């Protein structure tokens, strides 16, 4: 047996499918079911990572044709550096999450059966790996369906709650609307790629096809629409904040961390690889949607008090950031600036893996909190840093990463994106060079708002006092959950302080699609300094910042610290008010209030305060009732009209069903006559 990377990747998919098959056989002993399934999943994920890493490292391109599928339409598989990169992204996070799941899923023992969770978890990851490996339209769409279907069942895992069922239905509908669009896009491209036999459905044929520009535009728009629906780009994002919180937290980590990335993979594959020639305004559209998603995503997140919903909205924001990088790259390619295009594409890909790492870690942390306290509502939490120190520390690492703070990984990809923006004056189009810097400032705004949001999330959940009404029974989580989180946190740090090594590795993708690399200039000054364009232009050394801060910290601490015995513990400053209690702290809603007030015009906000006055004196309220509702304007403007019109159309179409046999026979008769006329 030869050890091609594609064989290893397909083997890992087989292991996932095998794990899904044997899980129902073990359902008697749930503990061993959990152990075996998730350990198999982690082994398979590791194999996928190895295959992907090897592919990108050595710029290998493997293809394989398997005779599954329809009789004359076998499945084509292809493992090239782009697919290899996404294999690494999917596999790495799946590895961490599978180890985490061993402990997490045990939390469900005794309450419900976890068999379906294990089965669909394995099918889900298998589907994602298949999507990345697919090399023809049929295989792609079948894998897409496996992925969507498995995740639907995972979102429905706790289906006794109505909101979970509703979330799953919304998710399924939007996923399928997107899938139809993707199917149509493939149809267009396959139509132009076909010869006499219908072999145009392979990606190879589509690449070679000569598609006229209007049809290519239609295919691009359809595929972008379809993938944007899956990625959660505004305005097709409504399912994200419903579905991701509803699913179990390990699944949410995967959905946010890697499932959204398969949509990015789709966009890059179709635009950069298959349709490889395009006008600049496609890139401008991608960039615009990316910017809108970034800003609106983070603003939505700031309004939330449910921890998982907040994280889900942040996924919208980060997908927007990835699209900014991809869009910039597309614009630069169209204007024949390959070095800048490489920079944009690398920034986008870097953010892809960064987001997988820190979003996965955030959801794992949220899951740990949920597991320990049974709460998802931040307003009922607080002070958990004392009870769950490891989780708190790892969640802090993830918060710092997503807020783009050096020396962690989020900062590197945002910095690269800012550098790409700063190089936009090289464009020949006069208006673009005026508008693109405004986009850069929107990116800065969203970065700062994200930092605010995560101060809120971490501060309200872990710091302060316990805000809940019942007693806090939290405890630290077990070793498997801790190791999953630790590994993800470690990768966040490593990706942040070793950017040149990562760029060296991933650069081959830029070379393939754009024709230029940045790794030469990026590590020109040495492996420690990242100089994307040139040393004079800009440089950043993550590892020096990291070591520098540590050194100064250590020196200052050594010289100045107070030994614990010399510290006196006392009560907090209460301004003379003795009856201070834990409800008087700032909570999530109050923290976001200034920002809500400034940016609230973008939402539908209803805020009411009612006071029930004290019997003794009008001025002192006995009871204060505060009502706040933040609604998404897009529901009213986009979704509701869409749903209403679909119902109306269905009703009108329903009029065709009269119920009389004569009517149906007349329909058949008319159709027969029409066919005979037209096919004469």
């Amino acid at each position, binding site marked *: 047996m030869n050890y091609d990377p594609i064989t290893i990747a397909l083997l890992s998919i087989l292991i996932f499918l095998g794990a899904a098959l044997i899980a129902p056989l073990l359902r008697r002993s749930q503990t061993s079911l959990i152990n075996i399934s998730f350990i198999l999943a982690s082994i398979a994920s590791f194999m996928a990572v190895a295959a992907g890493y090897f592919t990108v490292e050595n710029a290998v391109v493997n293809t394989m044709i398997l005779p599954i599928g329809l009789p004359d339409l076998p499945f084509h598989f292809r493992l090239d550096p782009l697919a290899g990169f996404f294999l690494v992204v999917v596999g790495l996070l799946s590895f961490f999450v599978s180890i985490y799941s061993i402990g997490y899923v045990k939390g469900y023992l005794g309450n419900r059966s976890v068999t379906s969770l294990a089965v669909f978890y394995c099918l889900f990851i298998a589907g994602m790996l298949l999507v990345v490996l697919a090399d023809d339209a049929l295989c792609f769409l079948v894998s897409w369906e496996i992925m969507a279907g498995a995740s639907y069942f995972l979102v429905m895992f706790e289906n006794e709650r109505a909101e979970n069922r509703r979330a799953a239905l919304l998710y399924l509908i939007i996923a399928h609307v997107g899938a139809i669009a993707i199917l149509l896009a493939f149809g267009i491209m396959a139509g132009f790629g076909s010869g006499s036999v219908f072999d145009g459905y392979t990606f190879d044929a589509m690449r070679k096809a000569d598609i006229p520009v209007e049809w290519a535009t239609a295919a691009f728009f359809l595929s972008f629409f379809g993938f944007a629906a899956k990625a959660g780009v505004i305005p097709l994002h409504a399912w994200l904040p419903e579905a991701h919180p509803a699913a179990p937290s390990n699944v949410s980590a995967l959905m946010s961390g890697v499932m959204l990335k398969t949509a990015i993979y789709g966009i890059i594959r179709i635009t950069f690889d298959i349709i490889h020639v395009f006008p600049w305004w496609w890139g401008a559209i991608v960039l615009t949607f990316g910017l809108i998603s970034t800003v609106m995503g983070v603003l939505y997140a700031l309004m939330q008090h449910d921890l998982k919903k907040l994280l889900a909205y942040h996924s919208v924001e980060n997908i927007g950031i990835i699209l900014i990088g991809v869009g910039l790259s597309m614009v630069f390619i169209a204007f024949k600036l390959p070095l800048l295009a490489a920079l944009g594409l690398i920034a986008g890909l870097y953010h892809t893996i960064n987001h997988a790492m820190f979003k996965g870690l955030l959801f794992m942390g949220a899951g740990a909190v949920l597991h320990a306290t049974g709460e998802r509502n931040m307003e009922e939490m607080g*002070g958990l*840093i004392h009870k769950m120190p490891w989780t708190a520390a790892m969640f802090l690492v993830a918060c710092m990463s997503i807020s783009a703070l050096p020396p962690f990984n989020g900062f590197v990809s945002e910095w690269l994106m800012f550098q790409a923006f700063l190089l936009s004056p090289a464009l020949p189009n006069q208006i673009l060079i005026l508008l693109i810097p405004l986009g850069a400032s929107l990116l800065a705004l969203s970065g700062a708002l994200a930092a605010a949001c995560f101060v809120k999330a971490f501060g309200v959940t872990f710091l302060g006092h316990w805000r809940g009404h019942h007693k806090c029974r939290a405890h630290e989580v077990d070793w498997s959950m801790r190791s999953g989180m630790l590994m993800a946190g470690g990768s966040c740090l490593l990706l942040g302080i070793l950017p040149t090594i990562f760029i060296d590795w991933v650069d081959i993708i830029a070379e393939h699609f754009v024709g230029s690399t940045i790794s030469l200039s990026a590590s020109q000054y040495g492996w420690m300094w990242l100089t994307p364009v040139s040393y004079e232009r800009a440089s950043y050394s993550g590892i020096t910042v990291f070591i520098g*801060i540590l050194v100064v910290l250590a020196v*200052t601490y050594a010289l100045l610290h*107070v030994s614990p015995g010399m510290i006196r513990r006392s009560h907090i400053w209460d301004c003379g008010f003795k009856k201070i209690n834990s409800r008087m*702290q700032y909570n999530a809603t*109050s923290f*976001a209030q200034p920002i809500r007030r400034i940016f609230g015009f973008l939402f539908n906000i209803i805020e009411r305060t009612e006071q029930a006055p004290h019997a003794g004196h009008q001025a002192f309220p006995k009871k204060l009732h505060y009502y706040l509702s933040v609604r998404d304007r897009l529901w009213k403007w986009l979704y509701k009209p869409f749903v209403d019109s679909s119902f109306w159309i269905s009703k009108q179409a329903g009029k065709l069903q009269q119920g009389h046999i004569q009517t149906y026979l007349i329909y058949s008769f008319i159709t027969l006559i029409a066919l005979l006329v037209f096919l004469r």
Partner: protein
Amino acid sequence: MTINSLIIEALQIILVIGLAPAFAGWVRTLKCWFQGRSTPGIFQPYRDLRKLFSKEVVLAHNASWIFRFTPYLLFGTAVLVGGIIPIISVDLPLAATADVIVVVFIFAIARFFLALAGMDIGTAFGGMGSSREMMIASLAEPAMLMAIFTVSLVNKSTSLAEIVQVIYNTPPELNPSLAFAFVAFILILLAETGRVPVDNPATHLELTMIHEGMILEYSGRHLALIEWTSMMKLYLFTSLAIAAFAPWGIATKGSLDALPLAFGIMIAKLGVAGLIIVLIETGLAKMRLFRVPEFLGTAFLLATLGMLSFFMLD
């Protein structure tokens, strides 16, 4: 990386740490003069720091490790930035570590942890300070980035050492985009360092506090380190403005004997900068919180005009 440059680096770091309280003292003295009060002298901040170091540290019962760790982290980030911005010389080995954007984000680390420390104790005042600080920061970032963008457009680089070199090599001219960016930067400096009209650093009313609110629970040497850090932040932001807009006087590569002149010129420039800051602080009243978005919006507008004029008037 020669011995000379290492010496210069060490000298500059010591300068930043040592001179920052004096600069803060100069600003306070000027304010006293303008407001007709008698002044305790330029060196009063040193005496304040010494007093705080000798005092006992009192922590709340539920203060976590973040609360104890934050003062050291803040001091560390300020010292690191002090080694990056060219103040007396361009020849700094650490200058390659970070460009302007990285410096802004290193300050963001400090702000992040300070805001967390404000939330840590669980009082309303800390939360209030943190939430307001993050709001102001989120509005100042786009303006700051636009100003940096304009500066980098004119000087074709975001690396501070390079910006200084480019400004030295081009003949001085009246550049409207840099003028706009400079005014915008002054406004952002006032917001980021917590001066009037955005935040009053000398207030004692908890409901008007932003920066002070976050550090309300600190005492002893922790408070000393945080105060020192905010003095260094003012010094560093001023030095950043000087390096990006008016760097003449900063020594270029190599020699140690250009340093005394550079030092003298730096003192003069800091004096003028302090004067400008105090003129603005005395002339304006502290704004109510929800006027700050307009203030920062003006800064963003000026920076955008600077960027637009660069392209349009060329």
